[in-house]
């Protein structure tokens, strides 16, 4: 997993609530057996019209937002399907941080598996960022160590984050390797469970 420490990047606003993972990456892009190359499907129906031509008014198609690394979006970002293709597509496109008032649980969790930082701010702070992002070419700074977002005009917004998740994100740690350090505990649990719930052993 990529580590995330500090990011200075262009800010792009997407002022819509309930952006679901079907909108982030539609199903036709889920038939891949790879993790890479999903940028082409990111926000596909918002980015392209029925003939596959880019919609010039969509924020990520506008030249002033080209190369945006931070997205600020409406409530309940990432709801719906559990597809991890959503964070993969965002990352592949170059988005490393999404700011919203709230995220759906599964998406939020998937972000931390991939080094994509989801930042929760208040409705006022999100609105302030949306306003400041207008016109494009505005830089924000996201500092995970300090847990702050510095807006284009210099306003500093602090955010909360689970300390363990923060630590792993800062170091880019692999969860499986960490859990396997507890193999002994898993062995012990399995031995006890095999005795107390034997009907599950020959299912």
């Amino acid at each position, binding site marked *: 997993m990529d580590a995330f420490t500090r990011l200075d990047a262009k800010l792009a606003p997407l*002022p*819509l*609530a*309930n952006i*679901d993972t*079907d*909108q982030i990456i*539609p*199903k*036709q892009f*889920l*038939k*891949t*057996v*790879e*993790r890479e190359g999903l940028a082409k499907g990111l926000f596909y*129906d918002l980015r392209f019209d*029925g003939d596959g031509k880019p919609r010039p008014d969509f924020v990520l198609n506008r030249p002033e937002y080209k190369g945006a690394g931070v997205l600020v979006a*409406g*409530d*309940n970002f990432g*709801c*719906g*399907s*559990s*597809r*991890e293709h959503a964070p993969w597509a965002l990352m592949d496109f170059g988005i490393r941080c999404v700011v919203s008032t*709230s*995220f*759906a*649980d*599964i998406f939020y*969790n*998937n972000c931390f*598996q*991939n080094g994509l930082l989801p930042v929760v701010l208040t409705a006022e702070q999100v609105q302030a960022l949306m306003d400041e992002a207008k016109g494009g070419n505005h830089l924000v700074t996201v500092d995970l160590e300090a847990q702050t977002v510095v807006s284009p005009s210099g306003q500093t917004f602090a955010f909360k984050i*689970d*300390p*363990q998740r923060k*630590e792993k994100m800062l170091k880019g740690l692999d*969860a*499986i390797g*960490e*859990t*396997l*350090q*507890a*193999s002994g*505990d*898993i062995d012990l*649990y*399995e031995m006890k*469970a095999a*005795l*107390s*719930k*034997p*009907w*599950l052993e020959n*299912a």
Partner: protein
Amino acid sequence: MRSMPPLPKPSGKTLYDKIWDAHLVADQDGESIFYIDLHLIHEVTTPQAFAGLRAAKRPVRRPDRTLAVADHNVPTEGQALGVAAVADEEARLQLQTLERNVKDYGIEFFPMGDIRNGIVHVVGPEQGRTQPGMTIVCGDSHTSTHGAFGALAQGIGTSEVEHVLATQTLRQKKSKNLRVTLDGEPIAGVGAKDYALAVIREIGTAGGTGYVIEYAGSAIRALSMEGRMTLCNLTIEAGARAGLVAPDETTFDYLRGRPATPKGAAWEMALPYWKSFFSDPDAHFDREIVIDAASIAPLVTWGTSPEDVIAVTDRVPSLDSFTTPDKRASAERALDYMGLEAGQPITEAKVDVVFIGSCTNSRIEDLRAAAKIVEGRTVAGHVRAMVVPGSGLVRAQAEEEGLDAIFLAAGFEWREPGCSMCLAMNPDKAPPGQRVASTSNRNFVGRQGRGARTHLMSPVMAAAAAIAGHIADVRDFL
């Protein structure tokens, strides 16, 4: 020697607390590692997980606790021809990749065309693999379905699929407890799907975020297992990763005699363990919602979020009823996408396609209820109507009962099992601009096909829409 399972004592714990405690393996740096009893997998969210295992040279820890099906991108006809005949090259590769992975790692698999194959959340319960007090995961958000049995079941991403394959555990922090109580007798034509939509309307699509929802009350007790599965299935649409119903005689009756449920002495041993999974009378819930089941009318969605719910007798809401600017903007976009006018009666919406299927509503009871409405009637001339049973076994059962003949005589297509038009990852798609009366779970933009307009509703409401040719009140067809 085998000891009896330890039975949790009354302790002010919720059902969720009890399942959580019974599966805790260790705490590591403030995160809990908890054991997974059953891991269901399918073709779409696993290839990258197996690739990760291979790259790290890690084995699958418990292939015997893993079950694979092919459901998301299978075509719903010609399945007997096998995967090699699947026309879509990418889908075929994904299905073949799953076949290779389950073979390499020794995982039980019901391939496309096997009578036991079907939608993962239909197959698990049907086989008796889903049991009370279990922890269940699958790389699919509708894994919440299995909570109907009093199992803690949740959808996970592909990285977590890899984590579970490698360790048979999941790392998580505990969620909060939310209880939804539904008491009272429903009116005719109202069932589990309407209950679920009523809950989502009440708390919103983010209302359950951070919670596990337990459903309780007399209306829940009165539901069949199929109904409970529908309700728990849609829990994710309310933002909660898992829904739960405490097991009772209805649960045990459903489980008895299924291929993977314990038999004889093992059944006698399992039963008291299962019965210990309920919320203690003094259990603490962080939030409580109470809904009067009798107050719920047949419901339908009008917009592009599952919280956009109205009674079938209602009008499409006016934009002024949305309080925040982004909610109003979303509603405006939704109306535009759906081709509806604010204030118009929803029954004026003419439908082009009717889809009865999906992990929400494709079980035998759903098909029986829809067939009852359809029997002796004819699908409106302009409507394409399809029934997609949830598994090969559901399909066979329905055929034994003659339900296929009822649907076919009315003008429905009778298709082979799979996720089908719920997510349109396979040949079953609704064309742009077409309106779909659907028993599935998501009315998102483009979900059933690019530009397709989805209205979520119960199987009986979808059946009524097929006959009427527009969204219709099922009570006129009872």
